[in-house]
């Protein structure tokens, strides 16, 4: 099984090389190259998803290939955790590839996308299969670099090259911290295979730095605050199917790295590590969605929203760590299952939403919501699929987003007798933050959907939009259906996750499939239960009854007329609420502290014919506090060191000599 699974990413790599080669040839073949590459990628991704699903319950299998370092080779392993993430990545990859068959036709620079796309996919899959630190880091960097190449595919736009620059820096940072984390884990023996790390059982002293480094390395890739800065720049810059992959899948691979290091390699961690993860998760969830609310670029809004969802996932992981540290295995299993369920959900609906944003981009050429509006009339199928995605990500029943957040709440509610005060306060506080994030997410997606798809078109481009091709529409509808099905049959997903939590925590949630009516009961029937299938059936039947009764007994007359608008409708579409004005109340309530936002109104005196103006100011405090000082320091240091580049040869020799003396002295003192 693992050989077949491993073959797929290697084949993907080969496809990438073939794509690069094909562009060296004459131009007329390009039309045929595109569907071939995306089609083959889709098939291989689907194959991986199927294989991963099949090997979820199987025993771990390993293989060593004579690649990489000449005397050890590259180790690969397929266990339950890898299999689950491979399934998610395969599903996302297959969807993105099919979508790209249609979407990619509008690509202006296909030679900058096609060769890197399969390589990016290969990197994603190989990270999930790697079983030693070298292979892991190599594939991690492969994934980063391939996606970086895709981010700067449209390199003529200065915003994109800037995004690529920031992304490259952060990717280097994350690779570096992970390298250190693996170095600490391998310990004195130097065995850098994961098996050796598992056997080593690092001391409690090591747990803290490893956790910190893993949080920095995996967290910066996943978009954990305050390391998220690259994400809202880079994800929107890439072509939309790549954005979907980066947001939906690559952040999940980072989550995988965190789980692999903390839950598998490191062993049980002390309780206070959970407090750190809980605090970061809660802060990320709320701040991520607040940032998302302030955006008016549709893709950037979605990217910030990824940050929020990563926060929710980390809340689940933090709870699992807290319960595991206290030997409460059943609770840890519930929390981990909730987190992984959200991993799956987010991969599905975020891909769907980025596909929708890509469809809007194709149809109108616009990403700015302030230039859109009214697309529901012209992009009927896309707008429907996007609506399902919005409802799912806003955690509305009966869709899938609700189930994973509900499970996270159930984990918070477990309230075992945790002896530590830190956890006693952190867990309910995270409950409040999670609730706040969920409510703000609904606000955010009312805004995203309402401004983009509803109302009247704000520009000619939006007024003349047409729905996109069949491949894109089909993919979006399939993903919308997955959102609904996973919400109606959550028991199937929970049972799918049982081998993962068994492998990591030696505990699992009770079997859900086979309960009457597909109910899910996380702990006990008297505590809580939820049935997505019946809720859906109830909503459908109640709607049916209402529609039937109304059409049976009420008047059928409909008259079309101009909008009422209290008697004073304004024909100009710019009088509609815009993305900025929609978020204004929330900006006033939350933004004053988070963004230091303020507004000034310039009202000309009576008789003055100038228009009144409102100006808003806001700051990105995280950037100002965490990134700007580092940037300034580097620039200052570079400026200061610049003088060293214009010295005479004598001075350079003197420097070399002094350095030698200093090192020898240090060595002498050391001994």
């Amino acid at each position, binding site marked *: 099984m693992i050989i077949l699974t491993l073959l797929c990413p290697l084949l993907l790599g080969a496809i990438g090389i073939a794509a690069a080669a094909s562009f060296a040839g004459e131009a007329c073949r390009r039309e045929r190259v595109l569907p071939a590459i995306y089609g083959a990628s889709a098939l291989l991704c689907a194959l991986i998803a199927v294989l991963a699903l099949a090997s979820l319950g199987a025993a771990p299998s390993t293989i060593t290939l004579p690649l990489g370092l000449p005397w050890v080779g590259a180790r690969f392993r397929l266990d339950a955790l890898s299999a689950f993430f491979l399934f998610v990545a395969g599903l996302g990859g297959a969807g993105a590839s099919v979508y790209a068959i249609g979407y990619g036709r509008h690509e202006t620079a296909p030679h900058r996308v096609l060769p890197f796309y399969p390589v990016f996919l290969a990197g994603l899959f190989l990270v999930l299969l790697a079983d030693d630190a070298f292979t892991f880091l190599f594939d991690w960097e492969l994934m980063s670099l391939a996606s970086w190449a895709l981010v700067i595919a449209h390199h003529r736009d200065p915003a994109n090259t800037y995004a690529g620059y920031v992304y490259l820096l952060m990717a280097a940072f994350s690779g570096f911290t992970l390298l250190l984390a693996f170095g600490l884990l391998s310990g004195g023996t130097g065995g850098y295979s994961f098996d050796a790390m598992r056997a080593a059982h690092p001391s409690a002293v090591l747990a803290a730095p490893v956790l910190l480094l893993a949080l920095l390395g995996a967290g910066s890739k996943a978009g954990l605050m305050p390391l998220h800065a690259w994400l809202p720049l880079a994800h929107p810059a890439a072509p939309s199917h790549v954005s979907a992959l980066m947001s939906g899948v690559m952040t999940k691979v980072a989550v995988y790295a965190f789980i692999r290091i903390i839950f598998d390699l490191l062993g049980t961690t002390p309780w206070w590590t959970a407090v750190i993860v809980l605090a970061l998760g809660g802060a990320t969830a709320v701040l991520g969605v607040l940032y998302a609310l302030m955006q008016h670029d549709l893709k950037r809004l979605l990217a910030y929203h990824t940050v929020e969802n990563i926060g929710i996932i980390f809340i689940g992981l933090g709870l699992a760590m807290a319960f595991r540290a206290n030997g409460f295995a059943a609770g840890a299993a519930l929390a981990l299952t909730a987190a992984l369920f959200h991993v799956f959900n987010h991969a599905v609906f975020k891909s769907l939403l980025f596909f929708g944003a890509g469809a809007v981009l194709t149809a109108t050429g616009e990403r700015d919501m302030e230039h859109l509006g009214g697309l529901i009339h012209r992009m009927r199928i896309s707008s429907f699929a996007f609506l399902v995605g919005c409802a799912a990500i806003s955690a509305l029943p009966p869709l899938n987003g609700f189930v994973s957040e509900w499970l996270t709440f159930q984990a918070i*509610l477990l309230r075992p007798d945790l002896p530590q005060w830190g956890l006693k306060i952190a867990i309910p506080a995270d409950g409040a933050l999670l609730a706040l994030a969920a409510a703000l997410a*609904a606000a955010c997606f009312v805004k995203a959907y309402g401004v983009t798809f509803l*109302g009247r078109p704000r520009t000619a481009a939006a007024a003349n939009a047409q729905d996109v091709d069949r491949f894109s529409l089909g993919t979006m509808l399939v993903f919308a259906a997955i959102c609904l099905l996973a919400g109606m049959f959550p028991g199937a997903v929970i049972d799918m996750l049982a081998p993962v939590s068994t492998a990591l925590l030696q505990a699992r949630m009770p079997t859900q499939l086979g309960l009457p009516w597909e109910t899910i009961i996380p702990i006990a029937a008297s505590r809580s239960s939820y049935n997505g299938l019946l809720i859906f059936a109830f909503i459908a039947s109640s709607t049916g009854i209402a529609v039937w009764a109304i059409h049976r007994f009420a008047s059928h007359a409909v008259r079309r007329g101009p909008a*009422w*608008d209290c008697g004073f*409708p304004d024909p100009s579409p710019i009088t509609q609420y815009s993305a900025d004005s929609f978020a204004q109340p929330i900006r006033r309530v939350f933004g004053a502290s988070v963004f230091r936002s303020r507004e000034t109104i310039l009202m000309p005196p009576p008789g003055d014919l100038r228009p009144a103006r409102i100006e808003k100011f806001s700051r990105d405090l995280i950037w100002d506090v965490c990134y700007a000082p580092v940037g300034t320091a580097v620039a200052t240091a570079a400026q200061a060191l610049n003088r060293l580049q214009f010295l005479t040869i004598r001075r350079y020799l003197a420097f070399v000599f002094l350095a030698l003396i200093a090192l020898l002295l240090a060595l002498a003192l050391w001994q």
Partner: protein
Amino acid sequence: MIGPFLVQAGQMALVLLAAPLLTGLVRKVKARVQRRRGASVLQPYRDLRRLLSKEIVLAHNASWLFRTAPYLIFALTWVAAALIPTFATGLIFSWTGDLIAIIALLGAARFLLALAGMDIGTSFGGIGASREVMIASLAEPAMLMIILSLALIAGSTQLSTIAAFMLSPEAGLRVSLALSLLAFVVVALAENARIPVDNPATHLELTMVHEAMVLEYSGRHLAMIELAASLKLLVMISTMACIFFPFGLVTGDAGAGRYLIGIGVYLLKLAIAGTVLGCFEMSIAKMRVFRVPNLLGGALMLGLLATLLLFVSVGL
């Protein structure tokens, strides 16, 4: 076997029939407090009948979302109402969703209503939707914190279990419960667009939230939305009655007479709550929109405080 289904069906019919009556009662009480005679308590039924028989005037650019939203909003609210133990706890389908799911169903209805408000592309729809989501972004977490504290006390998020626990002598008087009740009242006022958060009686543009969103609706669509709004008020009051004042609830199997008494007690609770709400609404003024977050933030903090108290008091 057929009995539990009858109880469930009876409850669904009862909430549907009682909801306009509750709204009518609140209006009547408010009128009496203002020393007006006021319309009959049956007026909401007449309004609904009138709306149902009228033609719809639909704006030119109304989409399918605008036309389907009223039915879905009504259905979501009705399903939420069907899951609450109003007069009996052992509803046959009460396990399909717990209190979190009920709140999420109301959230879904609000999501659709806010979208429908933005569909026509008028500035009133936008202002209503944007204020509604601002209020909801604080009211929903406050509600969830109340649920968390209740679930910690009763060991369940299932409403029937919570009600059974509250009926048992174990419940007693607790600080957390008092804080939760206070927060619940504030949230319920906000959720139902009552004074001091919103005024259901005015069409004064600058004060309205809920009314601004439904401004473009007419005819049978408006009837559905009005009915859903009445139902939502009933849902909130029933939830409060079920959690904090569960006496009189029929638990377990009982005869028809017992159920009739249960229904009577429930209607009495509704009448008391409606009267109190009417008097309360007449005794205070509406707040400025940007003072509402302070009120709701207070409710959120109360809920958090109640939860924190429970978390730290365990094992003490």
